[in-house]
């Protein structure tokens, strides 16, 4: 029953997407092309010139691409879980309309999570395809990096969406982006190994879901994945996602059932 209610809300987002899909496909392709071109090939030539022992002896492109895959998933999740959700309750008030139907607040939440999952799958698949075209993939295990990237995105999507339901001013999202997403993007092992960070801050990086996502995607793309560490990374991401879902069930109900 709950499943079918969430599906009804998922189909709303699907209908909604019909108006914006073109632009989103465009940016979905352009984003990896630009990043892999500029950083992977451009900057990568310089890095490779100086030796790549510290990044495992692979080309910088091969090192960077799976990191960017995970980071892009984080950004997709951020985009889907902030303004669209906030707008539904604050601007359009379509969430208020939906809860007058049989749907419950948690159904709206789960329906949107399903939608976020689909968007993550789409964008990550495109990203992996572009990686393949750039010759940045080293192992057939890279195919498993698709669900790994989706999981990384959900570990951000679920808690951010839970938070979005508590927000009363949309400037909060700009703060989250500036002080949360951008530092994570820069310091979670996407562009350089976390081992390069000062020893004091290194444990912080290990706490962030993005570091686990990057490490998981990278080991799969390079073919160096170990069962134990992969299970640890995936387990951490699942745990954060579950916490986000539990929190979101609460924040959705509080916001919509006053």
């Amino acid at each position, binding site marked *: 029953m709950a499943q079918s209610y969430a599906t*009804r809300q998922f189909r709303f987002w699907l209908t909604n997407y019909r108006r914006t899909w073109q632009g989103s496909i465009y940016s979905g392709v352009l984003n990896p092309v630009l990043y892999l071109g500029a950083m992977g090939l451009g900057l990568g030539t310089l890095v490779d010139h100086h030796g790549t022992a510290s990044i495992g002896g692979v080309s910088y492109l091969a090192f960077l691409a799976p990191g960017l895959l995970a980071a892009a998933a984080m950004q997709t999740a951020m985009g889907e879980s902030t303004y669209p959700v906030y707008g539904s309750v604050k601007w*359009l*008030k379509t969430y*208020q309309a939906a809860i*007058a*139907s*049989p749907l419950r607040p948690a159904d709206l939440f789960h329906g949107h999570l399903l939608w976020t999952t689909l968007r993550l799958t789409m964008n990550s698949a495109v990203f992996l395809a572009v990686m393949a075209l750039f010759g940045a993939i080293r192992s057939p295990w890279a195919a498993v990096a698709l669900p790994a990237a989706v999981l990384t995105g959900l570990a951000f999507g679920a808690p951010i969406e839970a938070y979005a339901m508590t927000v009363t001013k949309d400037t909060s999202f700009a703060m989250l982006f500036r002080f949360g997403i951008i530092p994570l993007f820069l310091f979670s092992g996407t562009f350089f190994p976390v081992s390069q960070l000062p020893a004091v801050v290194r444990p912080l990086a290990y706490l962030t879901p993005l570091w686990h996502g990057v490490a998981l995607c990278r080991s799969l793309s390079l073919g160096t994945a170990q069962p134990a560490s992969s299970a640890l990374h995936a387990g951490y991401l699942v745990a954060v996602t579950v916490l986000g879902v539990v929190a979101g069930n609460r924040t959705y109900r509080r916001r919509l059932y006053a």
Partner: protein
Amino acid sequence: MLFVRALSALEGRVADVPDPDILIRARGLSKKFGEFTAVDGIDFDLSRGEVFGFLGPNGAGKSSTMRMIGCVSPPSGGELTILGMDPVTQGPAIRARLGVVPQEDTLDVELTVRENLLIYGRYFGLRRDVIRERTAQLLDFVQLTERAGDQVEPLSGGMKRRLTIARSLISEPEILLLDEPTTGLDPQARHVVWDRLYRLKQQGTTLVLTTHYMDEAEQLCDRLVVMDRGKIAAGGSPRQLIETFSTPEVLELRFSLAEQEQAAEKLAEIQAGRLEVLADRILIYTSDGDNALDAVRARGLEPATSLVRRSTLEDVFLRLTGRRLED
């Protein structure tokens, strides 16, 4: 069930068998937000096929009551039964049989008129062909057929209201809840909405509405309760309420501001009827307005303007609460 009846009989009470025609039953229903009590222990029954109204000024607790009936706001106390079910534990099953027209428009203005109905129909689990068929009928009913493919954003306030009404009917609800259905509309748009609601009433739809317009309540409601500060001050048909709490006629007198206070004192002496002194005029409640006006003039008082009219629900509200409805 039998067991319950037997038990009740043993206790010497009449068994409390639910009446299938009572769709909503509230006893001591209350809603608190922190320290603030929005609804303070109200009782009412809604019968199948009637148009039931909550009349009261802004902040009287009408919308909070509607949200509790709509199962999107858990009651803080008392009992509430809707269609024989508990709104807290059986919300989805109840809401599947309700239609809701909220006070604020909650249409998806980025989608088209038709898409809004499609989305909403799907929320109720309706099949696409069923939705398509009902959409055609409903858009015809609310006179929006020609705008079916248009985006909602540029529609006028009246059109959006009518679309909201159409959307609330997509699931063919047994009870339609309307929270201030014509607030913010111009007079012409209000009359179109009233006309559509009147047709629904003719078709036998059970309507529950809140309003602070006494003309809306008088025109549409079979029965209403007057709400003030979270409590029900009185209830009955509009006619009953007027007969009980007001006089057949009202004499409205306006004096120049300088004279009003003095005039009020003199009028009190005449005792032509109960007096209400408002900021800009004085009301005299009487069975015969013309007689009362003669009596006023006989005492040498010459009002700037005078008007004899029938009593309205506004007068009932004034009598019950000492305040005006639209203040």
